């Protein structure tokens, strides 16, 4: 497996997308979801992709993370051309560099909170999974609930576990899909705060899909997607958040 194949040397971007289009086959017809997307996100930057339901933002997130391949165009993730890698190579690339936070948390119901956080550390073959997971859960305020299973936790608590899990392998890039979508406003704000703080502390690149304008406003870059077409919105608050 060659995840260590030479990254594109001319590239300082964490993510670089050129002329990306994506369509799905509907039998007789095909439906274009994304058209001619171009975007680049630097290392350590935070970016929000905003759009209505069905605008193609989640599809774009999946393509950026290498979960799927675009119909045409290229995606470079940390200098690696995604479409040149096999599925297993892409998986290996993800195992140490990529973290995810999902709208529906996606915790394994049969594992306890700490086991859910330990899982990616073990999958990546990193040492000290338990102590690292304990530290992260402590960091997200769940030191007392490590042995609880997801069913015993509230929505906000489950998302905290998911965030701890996302940061477990010290990813270079974190993809978040509507991280506050399933939470009430106050809990959502707390989660946003946590996510941004961790992101800042760890210097992670953050790519987030949301339709929460407030959340989007806290990111350095702000993209809007409409009917599969992406354009960047120049935010006046950019300097504020970047500071």
């Amino acid at each position: 497996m060659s995840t260590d194949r030479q990254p594109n040397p001319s590239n300082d971007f964490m993510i670089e997308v050129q002329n990306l289009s994506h369509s799905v086959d509907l039998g007789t017809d095909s439906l274009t979801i994304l058209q001619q997307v171009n975007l680049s996100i630097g290392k350590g930057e935070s970016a929000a992709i905003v759009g209505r339901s069905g605008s193609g933002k989640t599809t774009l997130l999946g393509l950026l993370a290498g979960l799927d391949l675009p119909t045409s165009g290229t995606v470079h993730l940390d200098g690696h051309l995604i479409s040149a890698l096999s599925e297993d190579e892409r998986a290996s690339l993800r195992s140490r560099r990529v973290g995810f936070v999902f709208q529906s948390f996606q915790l394994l119901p049969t594992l306890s909170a700490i086991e859910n956080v330990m899982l990616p550390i073990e999958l990546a073959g990193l040492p000290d999974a338990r102590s690292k997971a304990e530290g992260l859960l402590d960091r997200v305020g769940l030191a007392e609930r490590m042995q609880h299973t997801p069913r015993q936790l509230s929505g906000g608590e489950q998302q905290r576990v998911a965030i701890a899990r996302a940061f477990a392998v010290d990813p270079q890039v974190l993809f978040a899909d509507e991280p506050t979508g399933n939470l009430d406003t106050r809990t959502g704000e707390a989660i946003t705060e946590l996510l941004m703080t961790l992101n800042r502390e760890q210097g992670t690149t953050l790519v987030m899909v949301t339709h929460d304008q407030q959340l989007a406003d806290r990111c350095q870059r702000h993209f809007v997607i409409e009917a599969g077409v992406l354009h960047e919105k120049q935010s006046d608050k950019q300097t504020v958040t970047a500071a």
Partner: protein
Amino acid sequence: MSVTSKVISFSQDLRERNVKVMLLAMIIAVATVATINAFADHLQRTLMTSASGFLAADRQLNSRTNAPIPEAWYAEAINQGLEVGRMVEFGTMVSNETQFQLVAIKAVDNAYPLRGELEWQANLDGDRETITSGPKPGEVWLNPRLMRLLELQPGDSLEVGATTLKVSGVIVREPDGGFRLSDLAPRVMMHIDDVAATEVIQPGSRVRHRGLFAGNSAALADFESWLEPQLTENYRWINVRQGETLGESLDKAEGFLLLGGSLAVLLAVVAIAVASRQYALSQRDRVALLKTMGLTGKRIRKLYISRLVVWGLISTLIGLMLAIPAAWLLASMTAQLMDQPLQFEVDFWQLWPAILTALVALFAFAYPPIDRLRNTPAMRVFRSLPSNDSSALAKDLLLAVVVIFGLLWVYVNDIVLVMALLGAVIALVVSLAIAGAGLIWILRRFPAGKGSWRLAVIALYRHRNATLSQMSVFAMTIMLAATLILVRSSLLADWQAQLPEDAPNHFLLNIAPESVDEVEAFFNQHQINRSPLYPIIRGRLTEINSQPAVEVALNKDDDELRRELNLTISDSYPDDNQVIAGQWFEADETKGLSIEQSLAESLGVEVGDELGFTVGAEKITATITSIRSVQWDSMRPNFFLIFPPKGAIDGLPSTSLTSFYLAEQDKQLLNDFVRQFPTISVLEIDHIIERIQQIIRQVTQAVEAILVMILLAAIAVMVAVVSATMSERQREGALLRTIGGQQRLLVRATMLEFALIGFLAGILGVLAAEIAVWALQYRMFDGEFRWHWPVVLSMPFISAVILAILGRWQLTPVLTVSPMLLLRRLE
């Protein structure tokens, strides 16, 4: 334990409903197959042991000529650990100094009988005693008729050839007496050591030597393989199966057990296939999540295959652990019917088909959908994607057909049975596809009705994929259960018809014309029903097409050429005979003759050939007009040769034969009868019939037990399948309640939905079963095809009711737990 392995560790697996279902299916599969196998093996050994009394041994070696059985063979048998016995049979005259009588002598050694018992009386009026050895040297036992004919008492002397023996008892019944109407001469039993002194056996005398062998099956098999190459056509090696009376009953029972076992295998395979598919479907989200964390396809496959191995091992072990006591229980149930029950033993060879079933089912049916998990798109973490595995389904189906075929082949090694079942399964799949498409079409166009009916129809349409796959499993399950029910009924009916409780169990031979009225009066006086009288004319077959028969017959050594045959006259043939060539007699037939199939083959004669007979001083000829097949094990009067009422032997001196049923408690009447009619032979076959009925009772009970096991397994499979989609249905139920659905509406709609699935599956399943039974009937159970209306009509309703109950059962939490709690629990 690392967390990774815990993600799908065994204890985690057990929390998953689909895994539980799959494990349960595996355990049922292994347990059913192993139980049936171990029990069938035990039953077979029991039946063989119980039936071996008919040979007075486990095996007999019979000489077809005068040559004795080589001593070296006995020596080798003893060397192999077998018990042996020697027996000589011949006919001769005996006398009490004043009267002579032709008798059939059986000379036995000290070992006789190796199996079974003799019935004996100290004198004519004494009680019957059961003993396990023959007469001592110097002594002789006579049958009651001979005692009276020669007016002998115990203690008197009997001259047998050149020697004189002391009469020391009355032989009433011998275990290997068999059922030979041709042996009309009364029985004398003596010790084999006295035979030489009689000087009766001379070159050319008709003597038959019989070797008796008994021992465990391994030693018997060893000896058999040693002996076989040395056997010439002059010797016949006989086991109970080849004996005249039991072969067919045992074959049919064994066929049924095999069928039961194969159906258990099929049922198991269906259950495992369904459960593993459900399991794989339920694992897709997890696999997608693991993929986002960077788990490669290779590692995913490794993780899941290691699960399969663990499940396979554990469920096989549990299945086997359940099977052994279950088989023991079945064995002890049948043991209650036995005089001498056989010790129940299990060895590995009885269990390996179950282990093989588990392995094959796991890797041929559970593996493919689980292996495909690694192809789950990682994008599934965001939203569920339609799975595109119709080509995989076709591949799976093809693999399933091949594997089922192979498994059944290994298991039963009977191409007809395998093809019949496979044909029915394929027919079922095709009709399911057609019926399924039709059903969807109808549901889409007619979602009419109201209330619970409308809700049920909508649910059927909404769950159409689940509906179809569940219906397939139910239909398959019903087909298997119905096949077994149908075969069982026809098998039992067949046996019952063959040997009803009041089947004639005594024969009277040698009824002189002048005695007929007196016999009639005796029977009337004691209110015994007898069958019609068959006239018997004793004659030798001497010529075939005017040539000496011994010279032109195909088999010149045929015994029937060397003894007198029973010729009879009848205008109709027995019910269980079939005319296989030529025509039965016309009303005024005078020339014709009907001959039994095997005799015709042995003589090399066909319809149109002329046979010549010597009857007393007369010579007669007749042309063969028909050839019949005869059921020699029917325990009814059967004849090699039948002449028409106005035919060649009409008017020749004859005696008569009849049969009647006498219950055990009326046996005393026989003594009165024999005293009153000393010249009439009584052939008692009540013990043979009793033994066969006992075997049939055992097999019947075994058949019932296996049927119950299969039906339980079938219901377990249905429960498994229903519970596989239970949480989804419960969620819907909870949602319906949340938005105000009344409990009654919910219960009715769900029960209706399941009843509809059950009804349709019932129709398809029972029709497929008819196809399977139709194919099986000819080959294995010798019946004719007919519609089994009661089963065909009732099965759809029964399956509708069972499924409605299952539907109600899986709804219980929805009705008893608050919707909020339930939705949260199911999340």
